[in-house]
């Protein structure tokens, strides 16, 4: 029997399509989470009072930022979930190796980020419409053109993708040792508490500023892509040595 040599690209493509079908439920949780965030956003995110002479101005703000934040959390959790045993075992039921499995996972996460990013940015309009119908308020928005929308969508996608890369790494580490379930939150909150003892800006704040305060589009793009690559490469390197179905 002559054996056809298996082609990595081909297998990754098949695995990706398979994962898209197999993980379709994660998208229904995306919708649920975004609607939940929308519900929270309807309460507004703050208001301001100002007066000048006989004119007093009250401004109430709405924002869909929370939807993006929730979408990030969703991406994080989704990435962790697909590194868990049942999901890795599913790959090994069919044709795979560890590399192709991870590559397919990454493409799946990219797809999830794209869908999550686009929908998150569109929820803004839904927010406007609902606020328009439900609240009897004078509602104004920024006239944003296609350029802003495209920029916002691509940046959201990149942020969500980067978070999912982080989730993938965390999930991978947890697969190596369950101790990481403890370690990651301890690291997370530890750095916040550390601030009180050491007179310095907490680590997390600087990380936050490193990404979210970067005004240059190009630099941020570079930062996000490099970070995501780093996370994914580390994960692949770790997963490549891991046994399945023990």
């Amino acid at each position, binding site marked *: 029997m002559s054996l056809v040599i298996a082609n990595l690209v081909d297998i990754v493509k098949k695995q990706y399509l398979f994962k898209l*079908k197999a993980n*379709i*439920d994660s*998208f*229904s*949780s995306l*919708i*649920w989470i975004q*609607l939940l965030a929308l519900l929270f956003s309807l309460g507004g*995110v703050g208001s*301001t009072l*100002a007066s*000048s*002479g*006989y*004119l*007093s*101005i*009250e*401004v*109430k*703000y*709405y*924002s*869909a*930022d929370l939807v*993006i934040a929730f979408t990030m959390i969703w991406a994080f959790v989704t990435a962790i979930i697909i590194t868990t045993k049942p999901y890795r075992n599913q790959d090994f039921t069919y044709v795979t190796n560890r590399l192709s499995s991870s590559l397919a996972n990454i493409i799946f996460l990219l797809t999830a980020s794209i869908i999550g990013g686009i*929908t*998150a940015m*569109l929820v*803004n*309009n*839904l*927010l*406007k*419409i*609902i*606020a*328009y*119908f439900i*609240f009897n*308020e*004078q*509602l*104004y*928005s*920024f*006239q*944003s053109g296609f350029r*802003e929308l495209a*920029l*916002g969508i691509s*940046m*959201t996608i990149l*942020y969500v993708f980067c978070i999912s890369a982080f989730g993938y790494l965390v999930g991978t580490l947890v697969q190596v040792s369950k101790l990481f379930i403890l370690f990651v939150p301890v690291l997370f909150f530890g750095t916040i508490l550390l601030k009180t003892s050491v007179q310095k800006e907490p680590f997390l704040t600087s990380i936050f500023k490193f990404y*979210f*305060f*970067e*005004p240059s589009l190009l630099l*941020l793009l570079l930062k996000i892509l490099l970070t995501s690559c780093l996370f994914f490469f580390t994960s692949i390197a770790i997963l490549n040595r891991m046994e399945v179905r023990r």
Partner: protein
Amino acid sequence: MSSIIPILLVALAIAFLSINKRKKFVTVKITHWLLFTYVGVLLLSMAAAPFVADGKLHARETVSEKEISQADNQLHKALRAGRIEDIDEKYLVNQKNFDNYQGKTLEIDTIYGNVPELHVERKQVDDGKIEVFCFAGALTIDTLDFTDMAGEPLSYVLENNILTIKPPKEREVKVSIVKNEFTINQFTGAREKGSHIIVNSPYLYMRIPKNLELIEGTEMSVIFVGE
């Protein structure tokens, strides 16, 4: 438009069911259907959002601080030069004419706390006609241009050779602003700095007959055009 709400509720209910009873009820078809409905609703609202602008939902032009001060400068310059015909109509808040004024003198006074700048133009004729114009200063909230809502309609009373400028009724402007997402603001320079409201005070402009003597009230300062 109101049909969106029931659709949304149905979508919400399905989403809720799909989370709770995923193992039992949701088939692949429903998940797909749910996703398509959701994306459909989002696209629909994107298409609809610009059109529900019947006074309640507006997308507004943004203006930069520089643009605002430039516009204010131009307004000021035009007033100073007496070229009010050049001023954009949108800045004109109100206008009042007093015909057949017989007095030789006119005292101008105000009980308005914020004294507006008053520009006076002497006409070439003695037609006994006094014209008062009020021009609005700019109002912007977070770079959104709300100048059209800023105009404080002053009122003018002419009694016993005294023109009194009365303040407007106290007004409250309530606006709700849907902010852009932080992923947009990060690059457009509209980084969160809290609210940023700019209110410029209004300007008054008067045309008086050639030989009318103008007496400044205690609170008023008058700038004569072309002097």
